[in-house]
């Protein structure tokens, strides 16, 4: 059985901790189950189901720490994995950064689990593929898509009596629609905790529309342009920035958050962005609920990262917080960026000259000092003039930093969920496109 209830998980973890002879023991028990369907060339290519459960045990003698994992849950297996972790710990040199296990914590709950998602059937998946493929065939377009759904649990216990448990569910969908003349491509992404919010036909129709509208793109000179970034175009850049907001690397002088020329200092409290930039963490947001406890057992609460353009919080591990004499700040798996009211269509109407970007692809760090990234536009790039889409454009390579981007903010629009995050449509001036790509 892949999914354990709170009581089942607690009982297994209590046994694990009971078997330990180490000074300290911490155990993580996780499981998930679900399925997927993949289609391409307007036909289903693969589909499958998966279920995994795993137990990870960390044992510590003083500051000597070892880790081992197993996927069997009878008493003998539980004893064995504890012994293995303990053997490893005894072989490991002392880790001076080991902080010991946490005291018991209090966690609030977030509604991450929806039964309807856990109840998805193979027939439902096949139906998603069918309602995506049928309109594609009718409009001389070829569909390639992927639906993946899963539900599961995470739990954690340690030898000081800390216990955490949560359940979650998720459905992720992407589809690429390529016009059969090979000159146009459209794409869409959707993700939800609750599958009843997902409409495969509606999502697929957007990708088909983009595919047809993007046929025979024109080339314009690369350079600096005003862009409207759909949430799927900016979410990865913003997310990368959030994940680089660790205090330790900043204090060590090797982050965009390091204070230049002042050894050991970071930019906490500085206004680094346009004053309309508000970025925060909120595991209780009903649109994007997420875990209320971090990997090291700290409670995750609603917290500002950037407020009115000012850096309000950086992430501190327990070790680094102790070194710096501050409270630890756990990292979250998701972020929220505040937005406005304009939809993508309204934002286009409000634009004299600009470029609409559906998504960015193959994004990689070029310079960690300035958080400069490169990547390309993909699956629907359009030229806007006098509030209307005039014609499709060839794709561009960009070289841009989200820090610069969030200083060149023109307008924020409505928020949409992308990959578990909530991101607004944004209009940005002077976005740097450095070359053209022939890719469709």
């Amino acid at each position, binding site marked *: 059985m892949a999914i354990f209830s709170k009581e089942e998980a607690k009982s297994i973890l209590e046994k694990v901790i009971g078997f330990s002879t180490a000074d300290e023991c911490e155990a993580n028990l996780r499981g998930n189950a679900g399925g997927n369907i993949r289609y391409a060339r307007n036909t289903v290519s693969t*589909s499958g189901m998966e279920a995994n459960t795993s137990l990870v045990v960390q044992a510590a003698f003083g500051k000597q720490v070892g880790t081992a994992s197993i996927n069997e849950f009878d008493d003998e297996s539980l004893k064995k994995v504890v012994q293995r972790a303990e053997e490893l710990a005894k072989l490991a040199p002392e880790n*001076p950064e080991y902080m010991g296990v946490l005291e018991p914590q209090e966690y609030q709950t977030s509604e991450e689990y929806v039964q309807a998602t856990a109840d998805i059937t193979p027939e439902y998946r096949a139906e998603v593929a069918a309602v995506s493929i049928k309109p594609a065939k009718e409009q001389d377009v070829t569909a390639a898509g992927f639906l993946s759904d899963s539900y599961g649990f995470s739990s954690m216990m340690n030898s000081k009596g800390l216990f955490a448990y949560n359940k979650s569910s998720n459905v*992720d969908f992407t589809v690429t629609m390529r016009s059969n003349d090979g000159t146009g491509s459209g794409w869409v992404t959707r993700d939800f905790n609750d599958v009843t919010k997902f409409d495969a036909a509606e999502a697929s129709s957007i990708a088909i529309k983009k595919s047809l509208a993007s046929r025979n793109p024109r080339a314009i000179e690369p350079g600096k342009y005003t862009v409207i970034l759909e949430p799927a175009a900016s979410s990865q850049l913003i997310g990368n920035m959030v994940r680089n907001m660790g205090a330790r690397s900043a204090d060590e002088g090797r982050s965009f958050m*390091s204070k230049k020329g002042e050894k050991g200092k970071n930019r906490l409290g500085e206004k680094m962005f346009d004053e309309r930039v508000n970025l925060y963490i909120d595991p209780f947001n009903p649109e994007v609920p997420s875990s209320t406890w971090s990997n090291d057992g700290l409670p995750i609460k609603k917290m500002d990262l950037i407020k009115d353009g000012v850096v309000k919080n950086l992430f501190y591990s327990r070790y680094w917080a102790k070194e710096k004499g501050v409270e630890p700040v756990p990292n979250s798996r998701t972020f929220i960026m505040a937005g406005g009211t304009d939809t993508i269509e309204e934002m286009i109407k409000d634009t004299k000259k600009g470029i609409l970007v559906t998504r960015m692809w193959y994004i990689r760090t070029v310079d960690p000092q300035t958080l400069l990234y490169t990547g390309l536009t993909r699956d629907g790039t359009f030229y806007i003039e006098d509030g209307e889409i005039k014609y499709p454009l060839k794709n561009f390579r960009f070289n841009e930093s989200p820090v610069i981007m969030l200083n060149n903010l023109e307008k924020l629009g409505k928020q949409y969920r992308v990959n578990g995050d909530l991101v607004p449509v944004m209009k940005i001036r002077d976005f740097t496109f450095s070359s053209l790509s022939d890719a469709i």
Partner: protein
Amino acid sequence: MNRRDFTRLAGLGAGAMFLPFQMNGKDVPLDTYTPGMDQLLKKELADIALNAAKDMGATYSDVRIGRYLNQFVITRENKVQNIVNTESFGVGIRVIVDGTWGFASSNDVSREGIAKAAKQAAAIAKANSKYQDEPVQLAPVKSQGEVAWKAPITKNAFEVPVKDKVDILLNANAKAMDAGANYISSMMFLVNEQKYFASTDGSYIDQDIHRIWPNFNITCVDEKTGKFKNRQALSSPMGMGFEYMDGNKADKTLSPSGMTLYGNSYDIEEDAIFAAKQARDSLTAKSVDPGKYTLVLDPSHLWLTIHESVGHPLELDRVLGYEANFAGTSFATLDKWESKTFEYGSDKVNLIADKTQKNSLGAVGYDDEGVPCKKWDLVKDGVLVNYQAIRDQAHIIGEEESHGCCYADSWSSVQFQRMANVSLAPGKDPLSVQEMIKDVERGIYIIGDGSFSIDQQRYNFQFGGQAFFEIKEGEIKGQLRDVAYQSNTQEFWNSCSAVCDESDYRLGGSFFDGKGQPSQSSAVSHGSSTARFDNVNVINTERKI
């Protein structure tokens, strides 16, 4: 792997954050190399799967019983951050029923568990056959009988005590700190795949595969200006045992830049010391003037350009559109191949796929559908001549047999077409790097791989590196910084004006080539000698924030 999959692993602590491997396996004793399951038992279990599938109407089936071991030793400066051992054991069964593939896997490797998984695979194939427009056509493969293949390693890394690995890493860290590094993180990743394959074609194949990847990242900070520079190791992930760590002199090449470069043997201490000094020097190096340059690219850099601009676009499933929704399609369409005149590169360019190359990550005796591995041409004298194809694709390009490049990253993943080792053949005429540089008026010599990005049809790319040297009138003038080059695949390979000879040939590679949905990881090597590319566009990547 998406972010949620990635964070799922995070319960293992800091070390596991680096691990893109599956963690649902059993644990493994730390210092003990456990011999695999008895051959006879594996054959018996495999036959249960094949028979169960046949009973369910399968016209073909194969079974893989796999045991996957990983070890990770992770350090920073003078501390060991984590030591993790993982083992994953299970069975994957693939069948064809009604012309349609079905696959199921299980970690219950008992007679009952295997029979159940075989039935599930057949049931999935039957269900999917309703949507199947193109029945599977398999290229024939001869029965291999009962055979075995073992990676030709001389030191099994899993038998080397953990203490020795920790000592090697902490020593390199200490030497780098003494040489001026502010920070260093170093790691050793070890992989052992023990795979037993059987199919209804009458093959029973036992394989033992080893991989190793030592690496580090050094940071130097200029406290006055607040600038920092990173320099990564010049090691490569290799299909080798612990002998890769020996640092043999015979496998070292002294570059005209003054750097030591590594072939089939790596000296981590030497590289770490040099890297610390180089990262420090690069803080005050000249920022590059953007423009057109002649590029002289070392194999430690060029492997990644080959991987992205040759390896991927010549994967037949990408060409056909099966990867359209994820990694993308390919500019190298079938009509270009059919024309037999498509100039992928200049006449100096010969690109070869090879699953048999010694010490490479992709080297095995047989692929994951029981096809003996081989070597074949992709681009010959500059012209596109072939793709990479497996059994169910070979007929599309008129091949009578599979190229033998089918792979699954776990017993629980379904095997599909993956990249073979794809390499640039060395130049036929004697040519050293020194001689190559002598002829360069205005150029940049790039060593090590850095930032990389390419579009979804593999036209436009941008690459960085680890170390950049200015070349002026045939001489190396010193380090440059803020360098990246942009080009178009066909334009770039047609600008190749020289390739050094065989004496400079070395392998680079990746442990983590990602493809498919759900995503799978594959390890692949790419070899070359240093090569010269004319008139390439170089940009300056410095910004102010």
